[in-house]
């Protein structure tokens, strides 16, 4: 090619910002709004057969209204709610839902970039970017230097390839804290639900 002086990365049609946008868009499709009496939180389509994971503090009642990114609305049944772990699983009827892929949070390294998608402050499908603050190893939370707001609760925290590493749950000392994906998997296994 004659114009070889151009940034090779841009030439190949990939760029950091372009990829970030693509990853955020993919995550958005798997992120739902969980609507309750007191505002809304987020949830993650964990499996294509309609298993949605969110925080227990987001899914407070037995039946939750769930809104997908494509606008479809469902009445979701809360199949389990564990206030201590702050996790809940909701089932919606149907199949072929745009579910996420999972990465074991224990493999995260401090400094790695992470992306959160959620519905903070009425915003739908808002993305924020940060880094892993400290390697989770076997700790109970993934701690990230990322801006989260209340509506992010129950939404995904993912790596730069869009693989979900945690469920955004709380903010402590300005740091975003997520329940690690491996803890979510353990929680679901307890219900007899296994990841795809």
């Amino acid at each position, binding site marked *: 090619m004659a114009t070889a002086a151009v940034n090779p990365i841009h030439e190949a049609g990939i760029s950091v910002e372009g990829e970030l946008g693509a990853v955020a868009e993919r995550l958005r499709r798997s992120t739902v709004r969980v609507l309750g009496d007191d505002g809304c939180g987020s949830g993650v389509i964990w499996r294509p057969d309609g298993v949605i994971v969110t925080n227990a503090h987001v899914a407070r009642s037995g039946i939750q209204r769930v809104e997908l990114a494509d606008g479809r609305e469902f009445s979701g049944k809360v199949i389990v709610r564990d206030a201590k772990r702050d996790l809940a699983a909701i089932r919606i009827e149907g199949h072929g839902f745009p579910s996420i892929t999972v990465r074991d949070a224990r493999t995260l*390294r*401090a400094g790695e970039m992470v992306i959160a998608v959620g519905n903070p402050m009425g915003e739908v499908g808002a993305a924020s970017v940060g880094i892993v603050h400290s390697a989770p190893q076997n700790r109970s939370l993934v701690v990230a230097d990322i801006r989260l707001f209340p509506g992010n609760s129950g939404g995904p925290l993912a790596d730069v390839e869009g693989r979900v590493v945690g469920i955004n749950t709380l903010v402590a000392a300005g740091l975003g804290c997520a329940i690690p994906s491996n803890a979510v998997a353990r929680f679901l296994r307890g219900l007899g639900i296994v990841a795809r």
Partner: protein
Amino acid sequence: MASALVEFSNSLADAVEQAGRSVVAVLEGGRAGVSGTVWREGVVVTAEHTIRGAEEVTLVLPSGLTAKAKFLGGDPSTDVAVLKVEGQLQAPEFANAAEVMTGHVVLALGRRGEEGVSASFGMVGATGGAWRTWQGGKIDQYLRLDLNPYPGFSGGPLIDAGGKVLGINTSGPRRSITTIPNATVNRVVDAVLSKGRVTRGFLGVGVQPVAFPAATKTSLGLERNRGLLVITVSEGGPAEKAGVMLGDIIVAVDGAGVAHASDLQSALDPERVGQGVQLRVLRGGKLQDVNLTVGERSGRE
């Protein structure tokens, strides 16, 4: 196809891992521990204000082992403390300060107890030349960061995206970060290792700014609108020895007009100790020059 985003993310994690080998936890610092940075063989630096008064502190090393470190000396005016520790510790790679530009990606590292290294992400918001802290310490480069300070970050390094150290971080005003650049840290480390302390100049005067009437300024041909009224003179101090009297108004130091007490700071830098300084004072309506020798301040004042 290589992913630019994955590569960038991995390079940040690599930078944290590499530089993290030189970051220690200081258990006694602050309320819940702070961080420290290996600077040279056997030498760890941290933020002076976090361990003030401690003769010995406990470190958690990158290996996870704990070690005792001895306080060798420090400089409250630049907030750098120098600790001596036994054992094999890896000094980091250092960045060239001149290459730091607004917009560069930077990471602030810390270590908390046994939790391992922690990192926060941000960028250089502005850069500038040398400045002085309110205690008079000379900081060789100004770095304004867009980066959130988290508990325990003080004393840890600021690194670039390549894992090279730019300086050590300490708390700044309004929940901001002040970065003490490498050149300043090196100056303090050199002074502490060679002399056991950072010397600070001493003139032996207390001053207060006073405004000159316009007519006075004109008739005397003064450079500034204000001067520094001498309100205390230390007994036996350099100023008294040179004949400075209560009520003198200092209008210039080494030929440069002065209007704020901080204008005297340049005469108090460590390298000025033992050197001469010329004060131009207004006494009895007349200007006169007084030559004195800068003394050394004693103690941790």
